[in-house]
């Protein structure tokens, strides 16, 4: 094997964005070691610059002629680029939020950022991972960093408990996932690359054997954990309540996007033979998540817990696109995750801001806020209404596209359930808006009565403000001016050979199955 051939096999240019993140990560660590706490004033911005550079690098990777790299271990196709972009963007916003939050908790910022960047790295690699070992390693990088982040405020017993719970459930679900993956390796006759696995299973003529189904179920257990789909959701409310809020913001968007990236890639390429089965399983997961997430969220009193159940429910909505399995289905998922990034992070920024100023995140404590902090009220209302799918906000267009794609694929009952549970969701989202806007001045909570004067020039508040305003504007207009985002999502699906191949197989299968009832 000569060097030129090796270089082309490696094709290391595809992971340039991740390379930039690694360099930033090391930079952050080293600067922290040399300068100590004095660097905390600007180290966050260094990390943000690195992540933004990585996003620029992603932009230049768009439509790469040869996305396969590292002998097939990594696939930098357009689908992965969008997911990597979502994860990097969610890390950027998380850092904007965390500069003040972590400072106030009295822990080191640089360490936090380093772990966060590692999690980002894991997520980004997971989006393009095309080989079982690679998938597992990046999944673990993401997971282990997430455990550390969850327990980062180590003097807070709730944070410790959340970390323990997350670790125990996470580690076991990864073990289950690993078992499923090892079954795949065995079934396919020793293949680890995803395409080769599909071929291997096809040639080994195991067909829809029990082994394949078990492998599928085990793999879905791992994915369901990451996207917090019911019934693999039990960690979500507790972790969301206990962990530092910026970490939750990252877990709800970055980690979830990574989970969906994994789901798309793994399920469409490695399990074409049991496509009906995994769609069935995901239908069940989607139904459970939509119902449970939305109904249980009604009864929450803590803001973070409510958003935990809301994020379970939102995962249910996104799964509609995955189950549809069409071009429109996949791109509606991408579009929804993009707008979900804006609205959820906007919401979490508001929650952080409120808890920084008052030290609580109980829903009842928000009452009467509009008088003291109109910007926060506006931003939180807009983001929650957008999560509820009220026009003309971004979330409305996201949901419409998901339902539209679902309906197009014939998932009538699922779409109807999505519509019904959306109505339920409006109720609990509006409850918070009601607390903030509708309450009279005399109904103001004690916390709001003593609300500190709004000062944006305190250290670390400026980035929060920037994050808040940018996500707020994006949530407001990303629906109305949605064409670029739609084009991005559609192109990324259309330009991804892996998905196109899967869709063709899928439609052929469905033509065969649907022709019969038509004839009747």
């Amino acid at each position, binding site marked *: 094997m000569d060097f030129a051939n090796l270089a082309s096999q490696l094709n290391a240019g595809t992971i340039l964005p991740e390379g930039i993140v690694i360099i930033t990560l090391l930079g952050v660590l080293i600067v922290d070691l040399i300068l100590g706490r004095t660097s905390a004033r600007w180290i966050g911005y260094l990390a943000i610059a690195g992540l933004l550079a990585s996003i620029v690098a992603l932009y230049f990777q768009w439509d790469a002629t040869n996305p396969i790299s590292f002998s097939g271990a990594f696939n930098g196709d357009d689908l992965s680029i969008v997911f990597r972009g979502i994860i990097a963007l969610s890390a950027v916003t998380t850092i904007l939020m965390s500069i003040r939050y972590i400072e106030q908790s009295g822990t080191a910022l640089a360490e936090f950022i380093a772990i966060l960047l590692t999690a980002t790295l894991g997520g980004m690699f997971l989006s393009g991972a095309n080989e079982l070992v690679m998938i597992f390693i990046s999944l673990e990088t993401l997971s282990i960093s997430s455990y550390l982040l969850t327990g980062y405020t180590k003097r807070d017993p709730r944070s410790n408990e959340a970390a323990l719970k997350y670790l125990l459930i996470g580690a076991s679900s990864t073990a289950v996932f690993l078992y499923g993956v090892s079954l795949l390796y065995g079934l396919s006759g020793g293949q680890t690359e995803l395409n080769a696995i599909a071929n291997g299973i096809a040639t080994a003529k195991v067909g829809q054997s029990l082994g394949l189904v078990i492998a599928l179920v085990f793999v879905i257990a791992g994915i369901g954990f990451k996207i917090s789909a019911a019934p693999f959701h039990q960690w979500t409310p507790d972790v969301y309540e206990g962990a530092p809020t910026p970490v939750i913001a990252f877990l709800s968007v970055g980690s979830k996007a990574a989970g969906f990236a994994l789901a798309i890639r793994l399920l469409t390429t490695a399990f074409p033979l049991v496509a009906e089965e995994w769609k069935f399983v995901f239908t069940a997961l989607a139904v459970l998540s939509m119902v449970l997430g939305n109904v249980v969220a009604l009864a929450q009193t803590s803001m973070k817990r409510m958003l935990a159940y809301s994020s379970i429910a939102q995962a249910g909505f996104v799964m509609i696109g995955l189950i549809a399995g069409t071009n429109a289905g996949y791109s509606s998922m991408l579009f929804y995750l993009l707008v979900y990034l804006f609205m959820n992070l906007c919401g979490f920024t508001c929650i952080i801001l409120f808890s920084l100023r008052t030290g609580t995140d109980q829903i009842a404590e928000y009452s009467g806020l509009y008088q003291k902090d*109109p910007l926060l009220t506006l931003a939180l209302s807009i983001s929650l209404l957008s999560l509820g799918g009220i026009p*003309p906000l971004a979330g409305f267009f996201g949901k*419409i*596209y998901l339902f539209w794609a679902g*309906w197009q694929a014939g998932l009538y009952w699922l*779409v*109807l359930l999505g519509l019904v549970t959306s109505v339920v969701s*409006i109720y609990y989202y509006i409850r918070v808006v009601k607390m903030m*806007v509708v309450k009279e001045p005399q109904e103001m909570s004690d916390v709001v009565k003593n609300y500190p004067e709004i000062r944006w020039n305190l250290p670390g508040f400026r980035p929060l403000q920037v994050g808040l305003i940018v996500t707020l504007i994006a949530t407001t207009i990303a629906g109305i001016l949605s064409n670029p985002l739609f084009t991005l999502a*559609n192109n990324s699906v259309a330009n991804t050979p892996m998905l196109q191949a899967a869709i063709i197989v899928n439609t052929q299968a469905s033509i065969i199955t649907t022709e019969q009832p038509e004839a009747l």
Partner: protein
Amino acid sequence: MLSVLIWIPILGAAIIGFWPSGTITANRVRLSALTLSGLVLLWNLFILFKFDITNPGMQFQEYLPWNETLGLNYQLGADGLSILMLVLNSLLTWIAIYSSSKQTERPRLFYSMILLISGGVAGAFLAENLLLFFLFYELELIPFYLLISIWGGEKRAYAGIKFLIYTAVSGALILATFLGMVWLTGSTNFSFDAVSTEKLSTAKQLLLLVGIVIGFGIKIPLVPFHTWLPDAYVEASAPIAILLGGVLAKLGTYGLLRFGLGMFPNAWSIIAPTLAIWGAISAIYGALIAIAQKDIKRMVAYSSIGHMGYVLLAAAASTSLALVGAVAQMFSHGLILAILFHLVGVVEAKVGTRELDKLNGLMSPIRGLPLISALLVLSGMASAGIPGLTGFIAEFIVFQGSYSAFPIPTLLCVVTSGFTAVYFVILLNRTCFGRLDSLAYYPQVLWSEKAPALILAVLIIFLGVQPTWLVRWSEPTATEMVSAILPIDKTVISQLAVK
């Protein structure tokens, strides 16, 4: 041209809403909202003036591609069905703003929400794209919720949430039906003319049509789905009640005519008998419940249910006369409900109660509220269908148009019309007549408070005497809508006869 009707209010709402607080008094905000809505009203009258009444199709069309993936285009147009509703919307918005208090709490939010609703309703009446319609339809949800639950009466929180949930369910049903209409017909676009449901089997058409009827039936509201209405109307303050009853209910009937009758002419003729009976039941129910009420606002609220029943009857009959009657009834009901709610609001503000048992002798010339009572008598008569007022014209056309198709439901509605007179006589008797309590001392009614009612009263009388101005706009469109039905109607009947 039409975009102005949508965007001036919405932009105005944004400007008013984000205007720095503390630099502007409540009255200034009110005046600027009033000016904006006045401008919109003038523009709307100008459009009405330019409207070609011989053209049955869409006029002043506007088109802008928006989102191709979703099949959502910015496509506007006005025809005979919508032009009067547009005028009603901008007129009632102006009156609602005019009749709002000068010392409204949190004025910026209040007026920007009203303007947002005005723009949204105009958008819904103008939209020529199902998804665009839905977008504007759902846009009303949150502003109305806030308007009811911030500036409402005692039980406003309950009423607001109830309204929100009912309307959200209605929206979900309508969206599901729209998706079904577009996808089952294999259309890739939500544009009105791209969706033709004739290809569908009758069963599918019926299913979709039922979705439409229930979805809009909640908003109209029809009888089993009406329970949000008394709470929302009663708890809302007078200007909001004017908008709710005058404009929002029309969105429901408009949706029923446009999407139910307009898009499913075939299935419509199958369920028309049911709808006619339903309309009659709705009307009777509204009237009988209104008789039993002790609160004048509640009475007016139930009268609204009754009057909307006539629209359903007319839509079911779907002769061209009945459709003209339906549009006329929508318009005149908007006017009458607005004046009634305004007067009730004035009475409540001056007297301090809405209870029939406590009100008495308001007609008393010196210590009472003579002009307000006189106008109340006039509008009660208009609502009950007394000739010479617009209510009679509309109801008469409805009955005339529907009798040939559904005689029994029409007769029932005529009887209901009598019941309407009954409860309005009770209302007037208990409030305006009798002796004034010797302790009563009511504040003066200012001219500015009387003005909206006077304007509406003049309109009600004028249209009652000169009804051409009420019906001429919708005639060609109604004729065309009916001509789309008749051939199919016959085939269906012959098919049924063969079976």
